[in-house]
């Protein structure tokens, strides 16, 4: 049995071991490979940067805990940027499992860093079921959809919400999502109400939305952990996404190597069988 035959019948657990080494090694011996800024990330950054002081942004936490490796760094960079620019934030989520609590935890943690006050500088509206009705309903009245915030405080008792009645009072919508809800932020909110929408989505979803960016329906796009890392660099605050980029690059090299080896092994085996026949 030659080398290529062995590769063809290799126990998959050796591949898992190689994957584990490729992911763990860069955390022990960081290489700090360069990360380049894509035009879509730059566009989203510029859109937020151009918002005037005290603008109001709706930030969504439309993701499940299973994707926080990609999405939470996006929420953090968004909050950094918005709080740093003194922009007021209304957070919502259309995802029941984890969304409301993650919004609460991450937003309050970041607000504390910037000395922001709940109810004045930011509000967490939490979760409401039936996202299509929620997205459409907020176009008429946010209070009709969310009579109270995530902690059951009536919106009339929150000074920020006295200024925010519907999408007309929101300057920008910053969607961070891991599911098909992004389509509805575009097709309902952007298309019907004209509010600009910028998105951070998981890498699996990203290719679909490039068409929306080039069509002008979406103002900028962050694709997966790489997108979050780019935004961290633009902010000058490298964090978890940036440190994960070494492992990401090494893993991609390993996968390319494995795909090449697998194909060479397959064709070598086929050639050998042909010779025997």
């Amino acid at each position, binding site marked *: 049995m030659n080398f290529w035959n062995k590769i063809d019948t290799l126990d998959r*657990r050796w591949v*898992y071991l190689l*994957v584990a080494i490729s*992911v*763990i090694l860069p*955390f*022990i011996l960081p290489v700090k490979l360069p990360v380049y800024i894509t035009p879509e990330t730059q566009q989203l950054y510029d859109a937020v940067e151009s918002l005037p002081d005290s603008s109001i942004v709706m930030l969504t936490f439309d993701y499940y805990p*299973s*994707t*926080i*490796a*990609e999405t939470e760094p996006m929420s953090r960079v968004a909050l950094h940027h918005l709080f740093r620019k003194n922009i007021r934030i209304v957070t919502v989520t259309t995802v*029941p*499992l984890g969304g409301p609590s993650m919004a609460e935890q991450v937003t309050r943690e970041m607000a504390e860093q910037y000395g922001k006050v709940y109810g004045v500088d930011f509000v967490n509206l939490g*979760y*409401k*079921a039936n996202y*299509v009705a929620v997205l*459409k309903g907020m176009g008429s009245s946010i209070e009709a959809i969310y009579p109270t915030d995530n902690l059951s405080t009536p919106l009339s008792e929150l000074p920020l919400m006295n200024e925010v009645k519907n999408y007309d009072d929101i300057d920008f919508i910053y969607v961070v999502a891991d599911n098909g809800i992004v*389509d*509805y932020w*575009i*097709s*309902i909110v*952007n*298309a*019907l109400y004209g509010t600009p929408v910028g998105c951070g989505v*998981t*890498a*699996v979803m*990203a*290719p*679909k939305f490039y*068409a929306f960016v*080039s*069509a*002008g*329906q979406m103002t900028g796009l962050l*694709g*997966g*952990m*790489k997108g979050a890392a780019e935004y961290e660099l633009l902010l000058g605050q490298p964090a*978890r996404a940036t*440190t*994960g980029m070494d*492992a*990401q690059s090494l*893993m*991609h090299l390993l*996968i390319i190597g494995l795909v090449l080896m697998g194909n060479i092994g397959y064709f070598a085996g086929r050639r050998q069988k042909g010779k025997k026949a």
Partner: protein
Amino acid sequence: MSGMEIFVLWLEAFITLAIFSFLYKDNPVYHMVESVFAGLSAGYYIGLYWKSIILQQLWEPMTRADNPKWWLFIPGIFGLMMFTRLWPKYSWISRIALAFVMGSTAGVFLITQLHGLVLPQMQKTMLPLVNSKGLEASFLAVIVVIGVISTLIYFYFSKEHKGFLGVTAKVGIWFIMISFGAHFGYTVMGRVSLLIGRVQFLIEDWIGSF
């Protein structure tokens, strides 16, 4: 770090490692953690839907003293009608509620999909092939137009793909394959990111806390 925080950190690390243990071999610890996750999710959803739908969106607005929305009893009854599916003899009643859901959903989606997705995307495909932004923009516009037309022709099944139609459909396949490749590459990147996230937690948060 408080005692509770340390406990949660160790529990999280144990659950992560228990799930990863499946990569070596199927084992009872993996199955236990999997079952705990399924049970917790089911319990969480029941509690959440009870609070956010039955109580907050139906019962409280219907029964409040100030401006009660009494008409909410109609969707409430529609909701109850769905449960008739449990009794085959009366399951036809649930179709009335389903018809309402399907009709209203179709109406909403028809407008939003057409107005929000189909028309704007079509409009942005109608590009000037000679672009004032320069040679690169013109080249990209030509690629977009060829890609859209050839892919649409690939999905045109009313005439056999022969001659000019066949060649164009083949070009369409190439565009589709390139698109699949991009999607697959991004999917791999996404899955790798999730693994990195867990490893980052184990190394930086869990081991880092020792």
